[in-house]
């Protein structure tokens, strides 16, 4: 099992009447709600928490990319990841990911990911999302019907840039580069492991199967509702005669809150969980799915965008609804262990993106929950997939001997040099 501690980095100061006074947390969110001076504290706390997760023994620390978004103040995950590469010791740096159709030219991603891999000593797990419609189309202006073609081209360019050892010309439709020759290149050979976030389209299933990438379902609606979608993926894996059904071919994001008892979990975390589901997921439906962004085939299979809850929004859900419905796995270590086992076995997933920081949760509670999970839950889940323990295809392969950051020698001193003679 691979457990990645994830922080979406929500803005924790959305007002109580946010829903009533604002139409969307995303794209056209009110500028005035962001306070740059307060964000100084917020960013540093969030980065401290990610570093803390490394000390607790999580396998990875995770960051992602959103734009103009009140629940994700991380338009550039690579900036956060660079800090983590320096300040963490063992955890994989899981960047899930860079929306590669948005980088111009996309070799920027090949370069920055290479830098992260080099600085971290080979700890990078790379993610290539298409990006949500909010990010990609409405914030970054990509033409919806051309987004996937541009994404595919960016992917091919990045992989070639990582793997070819001589300069080459790339004559793409969206990128024309005469001399591709990135410098540096990643430590991990032939390429760092790649995870692809997806939302149920067959094209993405096939893309992962064909390239041996891990398929990640990053949902906020929990593992019970994910069953149908993940089964669709595994059916496709079987249909395509894929040589194995390793659970590491898949990942899943789950909100998790641990306390000593179920009651304590509700008492400590419900306000923060409700903050997330009520305020942070308040997305104007007109931004959820630009026409042309999803293929007709995907729409016809009935997969609705998770950002367009059809009827009855998240705001009507109580703590009880969210916990019983599996949106959130919360409770005592024993309760959480049981439900996590259901999740892992039910979805057959080896990569768990643990959303341990939720909404406006303060650092101390987040640490309490994370520590309980790391000490009392994680060890008991580790042995759940013994038959696939050796499957390293979807995880990073760090250098055995890695540099320790902040360990410069004494500055050169002429006096000392003279003494040494």
């Amino acid at each position, binding site marked *: 099992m691979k457990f990645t501690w994830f922080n979406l980095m929500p803005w924790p100061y959305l007002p109580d009447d946010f829903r009533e006074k604002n139409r969307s947390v995303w794209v056209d969110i009110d500028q005035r709600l962001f306070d740059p001076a307060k964000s100084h504290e917020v960013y540093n706390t969030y980065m401290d928490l990610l570093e803390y997760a490394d000390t607790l023994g999580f396998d990875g620390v995770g960051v992602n990319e959103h734009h103009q978004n009140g629940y994700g103040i991380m338009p550039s995950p690579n900036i956060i990841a660079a800090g983590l590469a320096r300040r963490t010791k063992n955890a994989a740096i899981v960047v899930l990911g860079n929306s590669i159709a948005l980088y111009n030219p996309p070799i920027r991603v090949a370069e920055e990911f290479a830098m992260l891999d080099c600085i971290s000593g080979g700890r990078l797990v790379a993610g290539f999302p298409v990006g949500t419609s909010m990010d990609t*189309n*409405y914030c970054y*202006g990509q*033409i*919806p*019907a*051309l987004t996937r*073609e541009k994404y595919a081209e960016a992917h091919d360019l990045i992989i070639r840039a990582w793997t070819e050892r001589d300069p080459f010309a790339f004559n793409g*439709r969206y990128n024309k580069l005469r001399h591709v020759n990135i410098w540096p290149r990643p430590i991990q050979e032939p390429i760092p492991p790649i995870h692809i976030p997806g939302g149920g389209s067959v094209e993405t299933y096939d893309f992962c199967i064909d390239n041996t990438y891990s398929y990640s379902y990053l949902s906020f609606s929990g593992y019970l509702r994910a069953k149908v979608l993940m089964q669709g993926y595994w059916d496709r894996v079987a249909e395509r005669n894929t040589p194995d059904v390793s659970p590491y071919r898949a990942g899943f994001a789950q909100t998790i809150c641990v306390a000593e008892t179920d009651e304590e979990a509700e008492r400590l975390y419900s306000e923060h969980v409700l903050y997330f589901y009520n305020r942070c997921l308040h997305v*104007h*439906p*007109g*931004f959820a799915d*630009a*026409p*042309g*962004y*999803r293929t*007709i085939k995907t*729409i*016809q299979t009935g997969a609705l965008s998770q950002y367009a809850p059809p009827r009855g929004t998240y705001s009507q859900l109580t703590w009880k609804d969210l916990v019983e419905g599996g949106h959130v796995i919360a409770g005592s270590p024993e309760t959480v262990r049981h439900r996590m086992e259901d999740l892992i076995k039910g979805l057959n997933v080896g990569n768990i993106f643990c959303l341990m920081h939720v909404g406006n949760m303060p650092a101390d509670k987040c640490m309490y929950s994370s520590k309980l999970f790391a000490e009392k839950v994680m060890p008991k889940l580790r042995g759940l997939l013994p038959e696939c323990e050796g499957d390293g295809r979807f995880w990073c392969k760090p250098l055995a001997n890695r540099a320790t950051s902040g360990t410069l020698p004494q500055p050169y001193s002429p006096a000392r040099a003279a003494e040494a003679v």
Partner: protein
Amino acid sequence: MMTQKTAQTRHAEVRYLEGGSGTPLVFLHGAGGMTPEDPLLAALAETHHVYAPYLPGYGETEDCPELRDMLDYTLLGWDLVKAFGLTDPILVGHSMGGMIAAEMAAIAPNDVSRLALICPAGLWLEEHPIPDMFTFMPYEMPGYLFHDPESGAKLMTSGLDMNDPKFLQNYLVRNARQLGMAGKLLFPIPERGLAQRLYRIQARTVIVWGASDRLIPPVYGPAFAAGIAGSRLVTVPEAGHMVILEKPADVAAAVATLG
């Protein structure tokens, strides 16, 4: 009475409606598409031989991934004129179709002598931003498109219930096909450099605008008129962006002035 036929072009097999007799006229529909019952088509067909193609993604014309940008669609327009066997037809376009027609006239000024642009897209005035139609909810559409949104909603849905889930699902798929294509020309800002090409148009041009257009405000009418030498601007009162549905006779009369 319009009949549906098929024209083969290099990249797309295009369904089109044909009807009426008289001077040949090619009508290019807007981002909302068209139906054989559109009253403007009927009005134009009384005096013209009308050819009205369904652009890729619209009606029964399949989506065409090979066509990606303004030039591709401008040339598709000319490929269609050729496929219809026409020389110098009257070019008429509404909204996005008007943008394509204007580009066709600008790129091949010697091949088109009569042009009608009905509240065309294609220009962008900083002081008068056009609302982002790609974020509209279904129930918001009539307010932007019609002088009278209430009767407009009925025209749009033929009286069907917008809250009916089945209607909504079909709407979603149709929207994805149609606006997916439209986005290639109109997303995220409906401007692809036409302003610097407008001067090339030599056609006698009439520009028609609904006085209550809340999608592309009527202030764009004079901007087009200023860009096309000798053009004439006709403003139709009590009509919105869908002036072609609300006041088809007025639009047809304006087009008729071209001959």
